[in-house]
C-alpha cells in the first residue's frame, strides 16, 4: 500500500467537501451545514492523529509525495504533500482546536440567521489552514495562505451590515496583503535562483543541502546574502499574517468578527501560520548564520521584531478597556515571544509555545465568548464585573487559561514553553536584549491578565447586563473544560527533564536536563510572575472598581502614559498620516496627470484635427472651387464662340466649301504646286 503521505491530501479535502456541501445546501438547512462541518473536522482529527503516529515512527525522515500540477513548455509546476512531526503536530492541533470551536459555535451562533454561511466559511478556513500545514511546496503553501487570508476577511466581516466589521475586514485583508506581497517576491526570487519551490524533493528541494549550498554563496545587493534577502522577504509575509510589529494593526480590529472566529483564527491557527512558515523554512533562514562576512543575519531581524512586538503588545494590552482587545494584544505579544524564540535559533521552543498558546488562548477567547454571550454582547470590562459568582465554570476555566498564559510555575503549560524560550534567549550569542525584553514581557503579561480577571469576575456587577448574566449552556462550557485540561496537560510533554515533544520535533534526541537546571533563570522568571500577579491584584483585586465610570487606578497613576497606551500608541494615526497621505497624494498626482497632461495632449490633438479640417474646407472653397469655376467658364465661352459657326444653314456650309475649294485650287495652280 502506498505510504500514508500519498493520502495526506484527504485531510484538507474533508473540510473543503463540508464547505462545498454547506454552500450548496439551501438557506435554511442549519443542521446539515453544522453537522457536515463537525463531521469533517472529526475526520480530519482522526486522520491527523494516524498521520502523527506515522510521523513519530520516523521523526527525522521528511516523507514527501510530489505530483505535477501542470507542465508549462519545458518546465513543469510540481506540487507535493509532506509528512514529518512538525506537520503532524500542527495538523492535530488545528483539527482538535477547530473541532472544539465548532462545537462551541453551535451554542454561540444559535440565534444568528446566517448560521449555515458561518459554518461553511469556517470549514473553508479549516481546509485552507490544513492545506498550508501539509503542503510540501511553497507554491501550494502560498495558495493555502491566500485562502486563509480570504476566509479571515469573510469571517471578520461576517456581520457585514455593521460598518465597523466591514472596515475591519478590509483593513485585515489589506495589511496581510502587503505582507503577502513580500512573501510572493521572496517566493519568485527563490524559484528563479533554485528552480524549484519544493521543500523536499529527493535531494533537489530548495531546503536540501545541494540547493542551499549554492544559494548561500550568491551575494545579493547591499552585501546581503541571497538567503538572507529571500528569508527577510518571506518573513514579511509571516509578519503580516502573524501580526508582528509593523503590520499588527489589523489584529485588534479583527475582533469585530464573532468570538469563535477570533478564537480559531486570531488566536490558534491563522496567526500561528506565520510562525509555522518560518519554522518550516528554518534551514533557509539559518543558512546565512555560517557567513561571518554577512552584515545582517535574517534571524537577528526576526528576534528584534519579536522582542519589540512582545513588549509593545503587552504594554498596550495593559491599558485597554475592551475584553477581546486585551486578549488580541496579548496574542500579539505571545506571537512576539514565538518570533523571538525563532530569532534566537530555537524553532522547537517556538513551536512548543505555539501549541501550548493555541490551547490556552483558544480557552481564554471561548471563555470571553461565553461571558459576552451571557452579558448580551457587552464587551467593555468596566461595565462587567462580579461574574465570578454567576458563571462558575466559565470563571474557573478562564482562571486556568489566565494562569497558563501568565506562566504560573510548574503546573501550567504556559510556564514551560515560556521557560524554554527564555532559556534559548539566554543562550543566544550576539546580545542578551531579547532576554530582558522577554522578562519584562513576563511581568506585564501577568499584570494585565490579573487586571482582566479582577475587572470581569470580581467586584460588583457594574451594569444591568452583567447582573443578569447566567452560566452558558453545556455545549459551550464543555469545550472550555477540554481546553483547560489541554492547557494544563500539554506543558508536561515538554519539560526540560523530559523533552519528549522537543526531541520528536527536532528529530534528534535532546539530552534531558535536570528539572531545576539553570535554576537562576527559572527563579528570576518565577519572581517576576509573582510581582506581576501581586501588583495586578493590588491595583484591581483589593478594591474592585465600584462603578463603570470610576477611574482606572493605572490611569490615575500615570494618566498620559495610560492614555497613550489606550490609543494603541497612536500607530493607526501614524499610518494614516504617512501611508494614507502618501496614497492620497499619489492618487491626486495621477488625477492631475491624467486630467491635465494626457487629457491636455488629447485635447490638443482634437483641436489640431479640427483646425486642419477647417483649413482644408477654406482652401477647398476659396482656392480650388473658384479656380475650377473660372477655367470651366473659360472653356464654355470658347466652345460657345465656335458653336456660333454652326448656323445649321446647309447652303452656308456648301458655299464655304465651294469657296474654300476655289481658293485651294488657285493656290495650287498659281503657286506652282508641281
Amino acid at each position, binding site marked *: 500500500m502506498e505510504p500514508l503521505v500519498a493520502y495526506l491530501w484527504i485531510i484538507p479535502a474533508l473540510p473543503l467537501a463540508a464547505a462545498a456541501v454547506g454552500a450548496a445546501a439551501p438557506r435554511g438547512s442549519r443542521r446539515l451545514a453544522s453537522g457536515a462541518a463537525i463531521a469533517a473536522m472529526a475526520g480530519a482529527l482522526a486522520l491527523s492523529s494516524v498521520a502523527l503516529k506515522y510521523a513519530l515512527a520516523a521523526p527525522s525522515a521528511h516523507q514527501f509525495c510530489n505530483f505535477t500540477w501542470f507542465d508549462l513548455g519545458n518546465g513543469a509546476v510540481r506540487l507535493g504533500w509532506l509528512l514529518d512531526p512538525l506537520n503532524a503536530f500542527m495538523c492535530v492541533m488545528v483539527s482538535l482546536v477547530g473541532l472544539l470551536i465548532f462545537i462551541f459555535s453551535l451554542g454561540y451562533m444559535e440565534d444568528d440567521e446566517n448560521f449555515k454561511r458561518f459554518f461553511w466559511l469556517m470549514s473553508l478556513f479549516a481546509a485552507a489552514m490544513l492545506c498550508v500545514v501539509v503542503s510540501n511546496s511553497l507554491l501550494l503553501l502560498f495558495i493555502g495562505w491566500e485562502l486563509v487570508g480570504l476566509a479571515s476577511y469573510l469571517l471578520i466581516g461576517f456581520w457585514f451590515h455593521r460598518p465597523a466589521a466591514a472596515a475591519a475586514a478590509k483593513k485585515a485583508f489589506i495589511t496581510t496583503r502587503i505582507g503577502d506581497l513580500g512573501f510572493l517576491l521572496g517566493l519568485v526570487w527563490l524559484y528563479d535562483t533554485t528552480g524549484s519551490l519544493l521543500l523536499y524533493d529527493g535531494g533537489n528541494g530548495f531546503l536540501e543541502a545541494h540547493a542551499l549550498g549554492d544559494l548561500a554563496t550568491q551575494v545579493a545587493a547591499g552585501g546581503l546574502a541571497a538567503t538572507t534577502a529571500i528569508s527577510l522577504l518571506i518573513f514579511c509575509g509571516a509578519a503580516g499574517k502573524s501580526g508582528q510589529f509593523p503590520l499588527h494593526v489589523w489584529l485588534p480590529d479583527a475582533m469585530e468578527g464573532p468570538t469563535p472566529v477570533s478564537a480559531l483564527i486570531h488566536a490558534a491557527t491563522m496567526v500561528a501560520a506565520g510562525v509555522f512558515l518560518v519554522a518550516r523554512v528554518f534551514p533557509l533562514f539559518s543558512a546565512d548564520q555560517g557567513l561571518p562576512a554577512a552584515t545582517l543575519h535574517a534571524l537577528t531581524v526576526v528576534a528584534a521584531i519579536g522582542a519589540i512586538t512582545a513588549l509593545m503588545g503587552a504594554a498596550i494590552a495593559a491599558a485597554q478597556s475592551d475584553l477581546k482587545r486585551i486578549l488580541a494584544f496579548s496574542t500579539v505579544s505571545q506571537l512576539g515571544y514565538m518570533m523571538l524564540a525563532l530569532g534566537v535559533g530555537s524553532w522547537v521552543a517556538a513551536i512548543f509555545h505555539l501549541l501550548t498558546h493555541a490551547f490556552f488562548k483558544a480557552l481564554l477567547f471561548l471563555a470571553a465568548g461565553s461571558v459576552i454571550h451571557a452579558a448580551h454582547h457587552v464587551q467593555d470590562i468596566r461595565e462587567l464585573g462580579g461574574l465570578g459568582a454567576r458563571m462558575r465554570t466559565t470563571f474557573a476555566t478562564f482562571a486556568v487559561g489566565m494562569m497558563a498564559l501568565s506562566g504560573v510555575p510548574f503546573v501550567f503549560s504556559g510556564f514551560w514553553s515560556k521557560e524554554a524560550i527564555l532559556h534559548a534567549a539566554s543562550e543566544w550569542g550576539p546580545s542578551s536584549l531579547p532576554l530582558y525584553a522577554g522578562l519584562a514581557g513576563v511581568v506585564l503579561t501577568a499584570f494585565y491578565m490579573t487586571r482582566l480577571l479582577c475587572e470581569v469576575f470580581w467586584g460588583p456587577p457594574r451594569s444591568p447586563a452583567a447582573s443578569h448574566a447566567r452560566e452558558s449552556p453545556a455545549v459551550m462550557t464543555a469545550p472550555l473544560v477540554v481546553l483547560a485540561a489541554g492547557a494544563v496537560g500539554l506543558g508536561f510533554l515538554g519539560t526540560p527533564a523530559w523533552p519528549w515533544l522537543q526531541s520528536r520535533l527536532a528529530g534528534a534526541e535532546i539530552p534531558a536536563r535536570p528539572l531545576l537546571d539553570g535554576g537562576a533563570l527559572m527563579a528570576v522568571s518565577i519572581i517576576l510572575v509573582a510581582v506581576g500577579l501581586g501588583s495586578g491584584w493590588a491595583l484591581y483585586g483589593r478594591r474592585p472598581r465600584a462603578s463603570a465610570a470610576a477611574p482606572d487606578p493605572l490611569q490615575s497613576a500615570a494618566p498620559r502614559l495610560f492614555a497613550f497606551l489606550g490609543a494603541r500608541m497612536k500607530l493607526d494615526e501614524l499610518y494614516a498620516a504617512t501611508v494614507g497621505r502618501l496614497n492620497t497624494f499619489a492618487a491626486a498626482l495621477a488625477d492631475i496627470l491624467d486630467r491635465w497632461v494626457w487629457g491636455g495632449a488629447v485635447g490638443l490633438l482634437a483641436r489640431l484635427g479640427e483646425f486642419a479640417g477647417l483649413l482644408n474646407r477654406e482652401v477647398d472653397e476659396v482656392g480650388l472651387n473658384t479656380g475650377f469655376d473660372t477655367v470651366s467658364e473659360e472653356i464654355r465661352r470658347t466652345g460657345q464662340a465656335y458653336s456660333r459657326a454652326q448656323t445649321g444653314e446647309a*447652303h452656308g456650309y456648301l*458655299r464655304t466649301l*465651294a*469657296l474654300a*475649294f*476655289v481658293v485651294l*485650287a*488657285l493656290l*495650287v*495652280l498659281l503657286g506652282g504646286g508641281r
Partner: protein
Amino acid sequence: MNTVLILIALATIGAAAAAMSRPSLLNCVLLLTLSWTGIAAFYLWAGAEFAAFAQVLIYVGAISMAVMFAVLLTRRGRRDFPPRKGSRSRAAYAVLAGAAVAGVLLAAVARSPLAASPAPGPASTVRELGGQLMGPHAAALLVVGVLLTVALIGAVVLAAGAGPEKPEATR
C-alpha cells in the same frame, strides 16, 4: 468622234442647267432624268455598255421614280411658287460660286498635260467585269450589298414611320 461627245455634253449640261432653273419641281425632275440619260449616252459613247445600262436602269428607272414620289409627297401648297425675296440674291451668288469653281476646274484641265491616247478604248466584256467584281472587289461588292439593304430598310422605316402627328392623314 468628238462631235458626238460635244453633242452629248451640250445636251446633258443644257438639261441640267434647265433643270436647276425651272420653277416647277416636276419639270426639273424630268429634265434631270433627261440629263441622266445624257450621261448614260456618254458612257455608251465611251464604250462602257454595262455602266450605261446600269445608269439607265438605276437612275432613270428607280431614282427618278423615288424622287417623283418624294416630290409628290411633300407638295404642301404653292407657297414656294413665287420666287422668295432672298432667292434672287442667293441664285446670283450660286451662279457666281459655280462659275468660279468651273473656271478653276477648266483652267486646271487646260493646263494639265494629259497624254491623249487615240487608240480605241479597251472593250470591257461583262464576263471580264464579273471576274473583277467577284475577284479583287468581292469584299467591296458584299459591303455595297449590305449598305444598300441597310440604307433601303432605313429609308423605309424613316419615311413610313409614324410622325409625331399626322393631321392631314386622319382628317
